[in-house]
């Protein structure tokens, strides 16, 4: 049996951060130890106020080769951005 501790991906929310951000990964036997290790490895300088840990093999990721079909469609939809529309100066801030 493989006796290597599983890999966990670590997400940290900083003091003024709006959401948890991926900061790296580490090995730990379980979630509880992963959080303890994440605290030692990734928050030694006040980097965070909250930690999420997710076992790496529970993460599904998009494939780099799907970049075209996934993201190209949004490139042609400039009207989704507010700057697409001209609002007359007289109308004021909108």
């Amino acid at each position: 049996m493989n006796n290597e501790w599983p890999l966990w991906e670590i997400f940290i929310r900083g003091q003024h951060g709006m959401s948890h951000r991926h900061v790296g990964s580490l090995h730990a036997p379980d979630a509880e130890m992963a959080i303890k290790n994440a605290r030692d490895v990734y928050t030694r300088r006040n980097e965070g106020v909250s930690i999420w840990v997710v076992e790496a093999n529970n993460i599904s990721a998009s494939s780099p080769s799907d970049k075209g079909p996934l993201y190209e469609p949004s490139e042609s939809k400039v009207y989704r951005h507010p700057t697409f529309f001209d609002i007359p100066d007289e109308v004021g801030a909108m």
Partner: protein
Amino acid sequence: MYAQMIKTAGTGVKSREEMTEQERAFQDKIDADIKIEPKDWMPDDYRATLIRQIGQHAHSEIVGQLPEGNWITRAPTLERKAILLAKVQDEAGHGLYLYCAAETLGVSRDEITEMLLDGRMKYSSIFNYPTLNWADIGAVGWLVDGAAIMNQVPLQRTSFGPYSRAMIRICKEESFHQRQGYDAIRKMAEGTPEQRRMAQDAMNRLWYPSLMMFGPSDKESVHSAQSMAWKIKINTNDELRQKFVDQTVPQAEYLGLSIPDPDLKWNEARGHYDYTDPDWSEFFDVIKGNGPCNVDRLAARNKAWDDGKWVRDGLLAHARKKRTRNLAAE
């Protein structure tokens, strides 16, 4: 440099005509400074070389804890002790960031650890030198971490995403290491005549081993071209060594310490200091395993790995048992 003499896999730089279509697209991305991510296609030789380089870099961080850890219990004040503890803990963190980056290339943590333990992979030659007294701890922070920073700052721009991100994080923390070292040796250089003598003695012993950290001279670095084309090596060994010398000489002058090189002098025409190269036969000898501490360092790592086995196994067994119980209760 924490990675020295990395043998680049493959047969050298290919011309565009010799490349396959996939290889051309890969090189184009690198030339356009687009990061390569773990799931992207990459040449096998790029992957193999990076595993060697990041692995050696990670091993250096971990083995590098030994010469400094040696002085934690004997630090001269509680404050110095707390600072040194924090620094050595950082090195463990740096090792972990780098191991994780290497693992994204498909090597497991245990595999890469075992390659260090049985000598298939190396760590930086500098950690095969002893830290004989407290002045050495200051000199290590100042010179060794200074040399490491010189190498790591450009590597923040390296082509492999996880390596680049690890380097960015490490560089943020590394500056503390150099400054605490300079602060510690300054205290001694400005202290009693005996402390001063110790500071100079540390400088005398660690100067050339620090210059060796950048690896052999460019004339002998046969593998550089491909690694530079792949942007996993950004500057040549001699470029970085020169930068280090130029940066360090004024810092030593401020301390009133002399650099153990009678031929060191400012060269107005070049705009750099001329200096004497280290004794390369000593360097190759240390790399081969014959440095003053090679045997001790590897023995210490092997002991830590063996002694920790019951902890690793026990915690895993506990986690598995808990998981099975939780599943049964659902």
